[in-house]
């Protein structure tokens, strides 16, 4: 009887471990890095993880890819014993995480690579390990003269062929701010941007609810031109969809993607070591190559390949051609913009 009960207990425990693998992970103090899903995860698994393990005596690491908002929700739910040690964020969510006191400052003074980052990337709350770049995307089979400016979206010849996305995404919000700036507005005044979107309505073939949906619309010929993320376009191109990316002459919008140590993590040293590896010129150089094409933030990385060709041939040109936005100001008013977009762009 006793033996049977013990057997039952241990098999239950084994079952639980299978059901909830985190149980065993928590005990082993494995470093957990919440990267983004999709191609980002692939890139980090292939390049960053091996580099980190090599430099840190084969330390155990788990990638747990999820959206920024899920990372914040998970850490908020267990502040004292966070299930994630390192977070990765777009500029908007990064400020939310910092504002909610979920982030441990990065020990920049002890860092080897931090000082080599471009000044824009040197954030002590969590350095930027790559840039996401937004420019114009177009279908070269339908549009023979490549567009050069955001203003081209308003051209009469693109009637019913333009795609944009809602402000739910970083891309959509950043694009609205850039349009506002072009017509005399700023991060705190997007009035001209809304007016411009209103004027754009005859040209709109689609207002996608997320940037990912734009990709399918290019594939289906529903849209021929839209604002787009450089990396998303590369994935489409690799699959044979006729799309090209150009930086508009007003400058391509660059979002800093920052990496953060989670407050109260028991793995602080390893977390910092992972960030160190992610900043290193070796890792960033490798991630810049095809097929990853991730834009580096370390000034020691020599620009090559598609990125040098399409975006910027060196860091000096990058500074000239990239536009960074003030997301602190954007975040202050984003909720009211989304509300306004809900009301005004609705059909």
């Amino acid at each position, binding site marked *: 009887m006793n033996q049977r009960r013990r057997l039952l207990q241990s098999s239950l425990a084994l079952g639980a471990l299978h059901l909830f693998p985190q149980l065993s992970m928590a005990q082993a103090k494995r470093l957990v890095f919440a990267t983004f899903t999709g191609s980002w995860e692939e890139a980090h698994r292939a390049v960053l993880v091996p580099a980190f393990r090599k430099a840190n005596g084969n330390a155990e690491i788990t990638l747990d890819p999820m959206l920024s*908002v899920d990372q914040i929700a998970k850490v908020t739910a267990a502040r004292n014993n966070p299930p994630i040690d390192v977070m990765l964020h777009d500029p908007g969510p990064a400020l939310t995480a910092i504002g909610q006191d979920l982030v441990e400052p990065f020990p920049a003074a002890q860092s080897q690579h931090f000082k080599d980052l471009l000044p824009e990337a040197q954030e002590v709350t969590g350095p930027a390990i790559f840039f996401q770049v937004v420019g114009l995307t177009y279908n070269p089979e339908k549009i023979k003269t490549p567009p050069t400016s955001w203003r081209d979206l308003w051209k009469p010849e693109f009637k019913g062929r333009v795609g944009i996305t809602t402000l*739910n*995404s970083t891309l959509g919000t950043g694009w609205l701010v850039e349009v506002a700036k072009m017509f005399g507005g700023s991060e705190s005044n997007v009035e001209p941007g809304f007016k411009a979107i209103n004027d754009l309505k005859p040209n709109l073939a689609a*207002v996608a609810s997320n940037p990912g949906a734009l990709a399918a619309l290019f594939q289906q010929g529903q849209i021929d031109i839209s604002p787009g993320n450089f990396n998303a376009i590369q994935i489409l191109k690799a699959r044979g969809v006729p799309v090209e990316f150009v930086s508009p002459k007003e400058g391509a919008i660059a979002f800093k993607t920052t990496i953060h140590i989670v407050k109260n993590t028991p793995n602080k040293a390893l977390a910092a070591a992972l960030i160190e590896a992610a900043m290193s010129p070796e890792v960033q150089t490798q991630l810049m190559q095809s097929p990853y094409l991730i834009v580096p933030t370390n000034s020691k990385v020599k620009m090559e390949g598609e990125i040098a060709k399409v975006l910027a041939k060196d860091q000096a040109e990058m500074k000239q051609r990239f536009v960074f936005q003030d997301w602190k100001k954007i975040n202050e008013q*984003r909720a009211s913009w989304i509300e306004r977009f809900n009301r005004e762009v609705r059909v």
Partner: protein
Amino acid sequence: MNPTLPVTAYPLRLAAPLAGFMVLFFVAPMLMLLWVSGYADPGMTQWGSLASWAKMFDAFGLGVLADTLWLGVQVTLLSLVLGYALAWTYLRLPPRLQPLVIFIVMLPLLTSVVVRTFAWIVILGRQGIVNAALLDLGWIDEPLKLLYTRSGLVVALANVQLPLMVLPLITALQRIDPNLADASASLGAGAWRTFLRVTVPLSLPGVVAGCLLTFAAAITAFISQSLIGGGQMLFMPMYLYQQASSLSNYPFAAAIGLTFLVAVLVCVSAFNALGRLSRGYAAA
């Protein structure tokens, strides 16, 4: 066991595990949502405010709610017309063909909703099947805008949810005694009269069940609504997602979620009441 108890009177204890499960994983989270909706700010620092609820019940919020329910009604009506015709046809097919039709009806349920939705993007797009056919026939000169329109969304949702309508209808129609139609005819009623006075009333329980399922599925179909409706249409699921996911405004998102839940429950109870009435009607 007391031998005088009827055999169907099982002790309530047997339901306790399920009840506990529901309380833990359904009722408790709902109460937490209600609690969250009481915060005054997105950072959730000040509790004790009706701000989220006031915002939910302003003209815009109510408009989104009404529009979402109206979408459900449109999809349900279209599904009902298509589904009734299909179920009617099914019963008159030779028995050899019936399994094939059932298979075709079930097919959409066997594929992921994302795949079905993407198929509709291919059908409705500027270079899609519909536009290509109309252009080839020379009926139109320019591709029509079908994707990201209300009618496109209604048609696509009706297709996606059709199995939920057809299966209860087939069951209900199958249960009708064919002699009743013959009796009606022998008493001098025409085909239409028989259909309207005999078949339709007797199939009402199936109609109600099908409408209930289709309606509930159509208004909550977040993926189809956002991919085919696009960013220029706002329904409750997307409104909720936007506030929770893009803005981290959990109090308002909680208010939206609970309002939507209650609205759906009200509709479902209304349908159920109708269903009870119609069962009485069918039995009479």
